[in-house]
């Protein structure tokens, strides 16, 4: 069964998954729905099988830890290093455990000529989400990238290992609280 507008799809999904709602902050010019991380996989499955959203565009994440004070970057000799600079007032940087991760998923339906964005919150202390690999193979490398750069574990992914950063890099560089440990390439 196909739907004609994205609103129909939303109304139908809301009956099955009551926790789905329109996101407060729209990602500009696309319908943006916020879903719970528990039902993300099921919602994608329903969208794929019943509404023709058969193409996964993008999987990425945002670290909503809060803006890190950029003074910490700029005064260091290596601009990529975020370190505990004494001149940075600690109250300007977010508290260690603050915030959450957002997983951003863009789906496309060719029959409806429509793109759709799903936003899902993941806990920041032990980040885990269900892998979309069984539904879309294109999640394979993109989820590995998110795992590498943010440290979000995707359960059910068959080959979840680092992809972009080298083996000796410890930690997840796109996290806001990432502290670069000096290695042989720093001087």
């Amino acid at each position, binding site marked *: 069964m196909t739907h004609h507008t994205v609103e129909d799809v939303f109304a139908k999904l809301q009956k099955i998954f009551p926790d789905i709602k329109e996101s407060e902050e729209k990602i*500009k010019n696309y319908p943006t729905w916020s879903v719970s991380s528990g039902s993300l996989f099921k919602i994608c499955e329903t969208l794929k099988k019943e509404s023709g959203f058969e193409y996964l565009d993008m999987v990425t994440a945002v670290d909503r830890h809060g803006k890190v004070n950029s003074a910490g970057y700029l005064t260091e000799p290596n601009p990529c290093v975020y370190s505990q600079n004494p001149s940075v007032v600690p109250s300007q940087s977010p508290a260690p455990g603050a915030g959450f991760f957002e997983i951003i998923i863009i789906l496309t339906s060719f029959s409806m000529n429509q793109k759709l964005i799903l936003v899902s919150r993941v806990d920041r202390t032990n980040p885990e989400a269900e892998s979309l690999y069984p539904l879309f193979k294109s999640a394979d490398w993109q989820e590995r990238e998110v795992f590498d750069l943010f440290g979000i574990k995707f359960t059910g992914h068959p080959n979840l290992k680092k992809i972009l950063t080298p083996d000796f890099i410890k930690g997840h560089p796109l996290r806001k609280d990432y502290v670069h440990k000096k290695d042989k390439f720093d001087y």
Partner: protein
Amino acid sequence: MPIEEKTFEKPLELDQMFVNMGPQHPSTHGVLRIALHMEGEVITKAEPDVGYLHRGIEKLFENRTYTQGLVLTDRLDYLSSMHNNLAYCIAVEKLMGIEVPARAQYIRALVSELNRIASHLIFFGTYGVDIGAFTPFLHAFREREMIMDLFEMLCGARLLYTYMRIGGVAKNLPEDWTAKCREFTGFFPKRLKEYDALLSFNPIFMDRTANIGIISKEEALDWGLSGPVLRATGVNYDVRKFEPYSFYDKLEFEIPLGQTGSTWDRYYCRMREMAQSAGIIDQCLEALSKQDMPPDIIAKGVPKILKPLKGQAYGHIEASRGDLGFYAVSEGEFSPYRMHIKAPTFINTAILQKILVGAKIADVVAILGSFDIVLGEMDR
């Protein structure tokens, strides 16, 4: 990642072999490594290994202003910098709600089509070299040189242009530029016929490429392919038609589609795209030469220092290699809170681990070459 012992689940049998292709290999078009497990000359397992050119560009965005970030985009897909500039500008313009004037829109479409031709010409030349034909390379670079000259007149650079600006373009077209560009579009379609005679329908070349690396429609959608790699399978998805930007809805052109999704189809899709691009360039020049076009090339009221309000935007375009997107998150600061690049080659290359299985080792270079990868964009 370096080779690890643990990548072998079980020890190799006597008739099995491990071949390490790359990262320093002339036919991987950069620092891509493919770990191949073979039985005789048939591949049983292929593991593409990327990340050798990872420069952390997404992280760099977070410590630079929006204007400084524009320069980083050139370094992604360095063979089609105009597209990277454009996708980034579209994302930031969406974020800030900037309307780009008509002249700048046409110039953007014009230069991105010129860049598409230049990029596909490199593909045509290097793909010939991959297969063993050296002459097409010289032909391709002769024509590419004309485009490089045009770009040099326009912005002074030959590879990394930074020609777009948030809200428009950097400079108007120089005086004698239009005449020189028309000279190119008059000259180029004839050359395309020459390429077809030289390489496309050459029986040796067709035998070598027409029956390998076949991707079905379903597979292509499942793996999220985009660009000529997707269209060669027959799926009609082109961002220029799907979600028109830069006045592509006012321009007439067709989307060349392949039939079988083979290596040759991917090659020939690009060749036919070049003819369409030449047509678009003519239409843009025609539109730009009209007297009633306002002379503005940059939107009025764009501040010198950009500070978008809190918000998020996703802008995407059809680049030479596929659907290139920028996802920007602003927290109301001078630099983006997060900037994600949806790189088409990164997503396209993942399917190699599937389609290389069962292929012969001699075909690896032919299949890989047909994806037209640029490692700068893949590793970011």
